């Protein structure tokens, strides 16, 4: 039988939130192990140079210091890693190892690791290391890095071009030749970073007596790290356990391999005792991955009726001295050029991508990989086309969005869309924001010298990736997830699952889904995540897969256990299992709804009195299920966002008045959690649109690497965010959920940029660079 949907779709509260509210979170930063040592690193103060002298003797003799490692003593324990994947044809990146050997390649590159009884003592000893670097000219600017004769940003590469690719449809040139209008613009999208409130944290604990390595790590992908540590340190996989307890934010940043985590594992393996590294905020800024950093030139061809004919896009993105491991730093740019124009019927397209090395912190995948860039470029050009044709922004989009009844649809860049709801979403947004009233209010206020702007941005979000993302390129990154669901002897339910929780509510939705398969309530389902020893292997949490893939895995595991329970119940009751169902914590007669036997009684009989079951009756109360997406290579969700802003044209300060989102994530498992994923995502999109930027000087020094100088969005600047939904489930799964983690971030900045430009339009000014700081707005206005 098919279980009901009593809990799927309900706004269940998160049980694990109660621990945090009581001050009982369990973060890696809170863990202290016996004999634990604390790590600190001496880092290169220069962006590029050669180590002329390194003397650690004074540091090694400092109070509390137990060991000092350099490349010479640490790197030999670790097989080098290289951040390339085969499906990005022709890409290159130099091999990396733990500590800088000879060359230092960014300001922040770790050179020496000091282990002491306290972090304070380790930091004190860092001051005693004599590090003399012969400075060399750093490769700072991506365009300059590509010039003939530019010095390579790392050793062992012959140029600074990491990867180049072109997508092109045959009709591209004709489309531009026949266009009534061509609009074009150059964009700069600044570099920013995740700033998770809990910094990166790892404690490696190697026990030489058993050969067991246990790594407590704040990450979203414990299985990926189990594989990395086993392979690079030559350990059997079964001897590597990675535990991710509570994680204080991740957003993609904590799934990459970092020098410091590898150093921590290497040091524990060498010393045979626990080693702890927790990044302080200053070193987070110069070692956590940064994001974006694109320069895009783009043009769009439209006909006289405002039909979008084609886009021609060139993206240059700057990634630091190495491509990240194991996911590369190419996925961001790859998604930028493939998501351009995604919501529209646009038949022709050319996208060129250049991924460039330089001597800065690495960039790589961060929430909504590539989406904000593709969305901002596309939507800025659509607004420019509308302006040329004197069309309202809603009208030009209505003329071009893929119709809701025109699916399946393949985009000009080759993405296959199963079913999206752009037209419904557009209409719903117009009503939600009361667009016509806002426009008349805007006109009225302009007469008073108040410049308000309204911007809209439809978007498409990639979710539920199959192996096409990484696996086909040779990466050992799981495209499947696994769950074990079991009935306890007392009749409760436990689910151990490979998807992980960073506060988005993974454990809550898994409990809801399993509860509905087994006729219990979510609070009767205990969900375990984040431990490679106690959960089945799986991809965990990235690219928006917790609900769509993890949820489906849990659903199927729950149904498998349901069948096992009904078989046992049938044997006990001498009834056909097909006439039985699960509800209210019991086996019921599916025809009458009458309770036949409780789950607790099934648990008791199968556990303590299996002798009373008929011969051959399987008493198993555990079910295991793995699931990988089939059908479409990825799912896609869609939606549309709107931003309402007021620009003070004297100061250049933008006030965010309100933000709206209409979103279609397929089946909604928990509306409360979905809305909060969207709101948090929107703010992570608005941050880099207005505030967040990793600023570098000409020497490659990051000049605002502290939380006092790097501006993160705070409560006072952020608007209220109103949300509405359309629900178009995917038919690829039973559950129908598509995912929602990146939708907010995907289009918030695009809507905001269009809103600012709408405000500036009567003044003849435009901005096409993020963050849209007051100075840049005043520059656009010609005031400075």
């Amino acid at each position, binding site marked *: 039988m098919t279980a009901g949907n009593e809990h799927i779709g309900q706004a269940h509260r998160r049980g694990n939130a109660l621990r945090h509210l009581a001050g009982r*979170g369990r973060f890696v930063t809170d863990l202290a192990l016996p004999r634990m040592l604390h790590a600190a690193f001496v880092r290169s103060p220069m962006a590029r140079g050669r180590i002329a002298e390194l003397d650690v003797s004074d540091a090694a003799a400092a109070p509390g210091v137990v060991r000092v490692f350099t490349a010479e003593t640490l790197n030999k324990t670790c097989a080098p890693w290289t951040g390339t994947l085969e499906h990005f044809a022709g890409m290159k990146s130099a091999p990396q190892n733990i500590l800088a050997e000879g060359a230092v390649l960014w300001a922040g590159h770790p050179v020496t690791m000091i282990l002491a009884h306290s972090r304070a003592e380790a930091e004190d000893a860092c001051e005693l290391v004599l590090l003399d670097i012969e400075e060399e000219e750093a490769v700072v600017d991506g365009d300059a890095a590509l010039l003939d004769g530019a010095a390579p940003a790392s050793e062992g590469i012959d140029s600074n071009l990491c990867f180049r690719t072109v997508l092109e449809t045959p009709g591209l040139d004709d489309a531009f030749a026949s266009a009534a209008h061509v609009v074009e613009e150059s964009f700069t999208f600044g570099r920013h970073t995740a700033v998770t409130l809990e910094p990166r944290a790892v404690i490696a604990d190697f026990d030489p007596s058993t050969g067991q390595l246990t790594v407590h790590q704040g990450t979203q992908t414990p299985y990926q790290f189990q594989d990395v540590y086993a392979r690079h340190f030559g350990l059997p996989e079964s001897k590597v356990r990675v535990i991710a307890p509570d994680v204080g934010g991740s957003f993609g940043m904590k799934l990459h391999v970092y020098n410091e985590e590898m150093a921590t594992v290497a040091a524990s393996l060498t010393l045979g005792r626990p080693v702890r590294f927790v990044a302080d905020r200053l070193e987070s800024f110069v070692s956590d991955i940064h994001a974006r950093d694109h320069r895009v030139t783009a043009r769009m061809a439209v006909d006289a009726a405002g039909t979008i004919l084609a886009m021609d896009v060139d993206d240059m993105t700057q990634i630091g001295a190495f491509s990240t491991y194991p996911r590369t730093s190419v996925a961001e740019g790859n998604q930028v050029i493939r998501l351009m124009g995604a919501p529209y019927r646009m038949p022709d397209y050319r996208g060129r991508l250049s991924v460039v090395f330089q001597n800065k912190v690495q960039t790589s995948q961060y929430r909504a990989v590539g989406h904000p860039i593709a969305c901002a470029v596309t939507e800025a050009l659509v607004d420019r086309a509308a302006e040329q044709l004197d069309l309202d922004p809603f009208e030009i989009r209505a003329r071009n969005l893929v119709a809701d009844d025109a699916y399946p649809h393949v985009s000009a860049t080759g993405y296959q869309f199963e079913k999206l709801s752009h037209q419904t979403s557009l209409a719903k947004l117009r009503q939600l924001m009361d667009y016509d009233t806002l426009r008349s209010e805007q006109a009225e206020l302009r007469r008073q010298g108040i410049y308000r702007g309204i911007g809209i941005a439809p978007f498409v979000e990639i979710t539920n990736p199959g192996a096409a993302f990484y696996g086909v390129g040779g990466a050992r990154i799981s495209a499947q997830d696994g769950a074990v669901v079991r009935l306890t002897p007392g009749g409760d339910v436990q689910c151990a699952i490979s998807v992980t929780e960073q506060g988005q509510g993974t454990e809550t939705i898994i409990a809801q889904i399993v509860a509905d398969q087994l006729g219990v309530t979510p609070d009767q389902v205990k969900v375990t995540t984040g431990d490679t020893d106690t959960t089945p292997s799986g991809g965990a949490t990235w690219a928006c897969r917790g609900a769509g893939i993890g949820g489906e895995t849990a659903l199927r595991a729950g149904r498998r256990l349901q069948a096992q329970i009904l078989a046992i119940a049938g044997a006990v009751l001498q009834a056909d299992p097909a006439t039985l169902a699960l509800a209210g914590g019991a086996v019921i007669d599916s025809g009458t709804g009458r309770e036949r036997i409780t789950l607790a009684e099934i648990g008791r009989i199968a556990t303590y009195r299996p002798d009373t079951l008929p011969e051959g009756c399987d008493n198993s109360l555990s079910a295991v299920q793995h699931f990988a997406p089939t059908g479409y290579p990825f799912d896609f969700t869609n939606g549309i966002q709107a931003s309402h802003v007021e620009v003070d044209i004297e100061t250049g300060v933008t006030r965010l008045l309100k933000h709206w989102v209409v979103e279609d994530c397929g089946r909604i498992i928990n509306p409360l959690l979905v809305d909060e994923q969207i709101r948090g995502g929107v703010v992570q999109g608005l941050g880099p649109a207005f505030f967040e930027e990793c600023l570098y000087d000409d020497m490659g020094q990051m000049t605002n690497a502290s939380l006092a100088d790097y501006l993160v969005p705070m409560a006072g600047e952020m608007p209220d965010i109103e949300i509405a939904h359309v629900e178009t489930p995917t038919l690829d799964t039973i559950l129908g959920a598509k995912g929602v983690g990146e939708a907010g971030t995907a289009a918030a900045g695009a809507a905001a940029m269009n809103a600012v430009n709408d405000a500036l339009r009567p003044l003849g000014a435009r901005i096409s660079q993020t963050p849209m700081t007051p100075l840049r707005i005043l520059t656009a206005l010609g005031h400075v």
Partner: protein
Amino acid sequence: MNIEIALTVNGETVRETVEPRTSLADLLRDRLRLTGTHLGCEMGSCGACLVMLDGAPVHACLVLAVQADGQKVETIEGLNESGHVSDLQAQFHDRNALQCGFCTNGMVMSAQALLSDNPRPSRAEIRDALSGNYCRCTGYEAIVDAIAATADRRAGIGETVE
């Protein structure tokens, strides 16, 4: 040179010998294992380390342990057990005003301080009062909602959340 200090933490008298450079946050977290106080920036920007010092919120990362000598410190563990913020906690839970939970201790401290000074704040005043509390997950709106709802309930408006 280490210094002996005595202070009251969550109603319990504590005697410790500390280096002069030891922050109150390190004393609470590393010595007393009160790990509900978090460290996000160690420069007073993010608000994750807020504790009550003689009833007023302070950044435990900016206060030296020796400065707390003779004073009363309350951490989230103490506030939780006292029941003084149980209504705030209930509203945060109901409104899902936390995700990863790392900022939550500081948010509760700021909210409690705000509502003590200004029992009926506007939404703008709530947002302003959170100007020293960084949250990367929620986008803030749910936190504002939870604090506003608590203010309403304390004023006898609306239903209490269990």
